[in-house]
């Protein structure tokens, strides 16, 4: 197991039940603690309560777009690492991530290896910037 995955608590925000469950399994089998939310509304309060280290945020989600919800998380006393999580084109995601303060993007996939490789790549950037953790 990568050192990047040890004892990390991850919140997954996505309105698709299948995506939530598949992602929960990807993460739990890799040793993460996982909490899930089916709505972006109220994520700030949930983050304050659950204190995740990392938030995987869907982008096209009803109520409050994922990038807008991500911006709100930056105001937290202890802001989590935010990663956009979507099946939208990567160019669009990278631009959105830059604007909303997310550290990276993960494209949805059924492959656990591909999912974890993307997550590791995102988390590796925070290792280089200790202040972001």
């Amino acid at each position: 197991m990568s050192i990047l995955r040890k004892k990390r608590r991850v919140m997954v925000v996505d309105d698709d039940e299948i995506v939530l469950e598949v992602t929960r399994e990807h993460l739990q089998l890799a040793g993460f603690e996982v909490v899930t939310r089916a709505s972006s509304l109220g994520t700030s309060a949930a983050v304050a309560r659950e204190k995740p280290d990392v938030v995987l945020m869907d982008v096209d989600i009803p109520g409050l777009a994922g990038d807008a919800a991500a911006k709100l998380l930056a105001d937290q006393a202890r802001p989590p690492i935010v990663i956009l999580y979507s099946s939208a084109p990567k160019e669009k995601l990278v631009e959105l991530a830059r604007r909303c303060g997310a550290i990276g993007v993960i494209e949805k996939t059924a492959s656990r290896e591909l999912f974890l490789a993307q997550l590791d790549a995102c988390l590796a950037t925070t290792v280089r910037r200790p202040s972001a953790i």
Partner: protein
Amino acid sequence: MVEDNPVNQEVVREMLTELGHEVELVENGKLAVEASANADFALVLMDCQMPVMNGYDATRAIRAREGGGPRTPIIGLTAHAMRGDAERATSIGMDDYLTKPITMARLRDVVAHWIDGAGAREPAPSAEAPATVLDPAVQRSARVLTLALAQLPKSLSRVTEAARSGDHEALAREVHKLKGSCLALGAGRLAAICAAAQERPADLDIGELEAAARELTVAMEGESKARAAESAR
């Protein structure tokens, strides 16, 4: 090497250096077109999805400049192990492709083949497989299968309703959501239909989408029964 992701840049650069190659790095397709005009490279490793100019457009530009002259091998780096990506890469002028995450063995193989012409390359793994109804290489839990079998008819009904009403905005939204479910399930064929419909909602063949959804349902039911039989043994 043309790659925007700093982690991938570092990983692949280290691999190439270890294989004994000199590496010049640029971070988008536009810079790659400029760099390849000013120097001869034995090989270009080109990420497909990048900001400013993506790898497909950069490859087209490089091929257009080369005309009928010497041709630099261009290897696409794709994030998706789906036939559509591979076909797209080779159809626009790339010579070969690697699916991320890239392994040392595959990189060595491809680079040796295109630089030395000596590689006895193994065929690419899942990247050359067609977009399957339900990817057999992916492990789905019984819980995920049950959820998906319950949710698919509802998603399909929302897509069908949006298509019949002629509301293209709603249709694009619904197929985007269904595509996300399909990608998480490894349902490549239906995901590909949804992706195309999201780009061009007016061109959606609802019969084709419904047929793919039926095939997916049958495949998931089969997998679900097999899983139940396994756990009963």
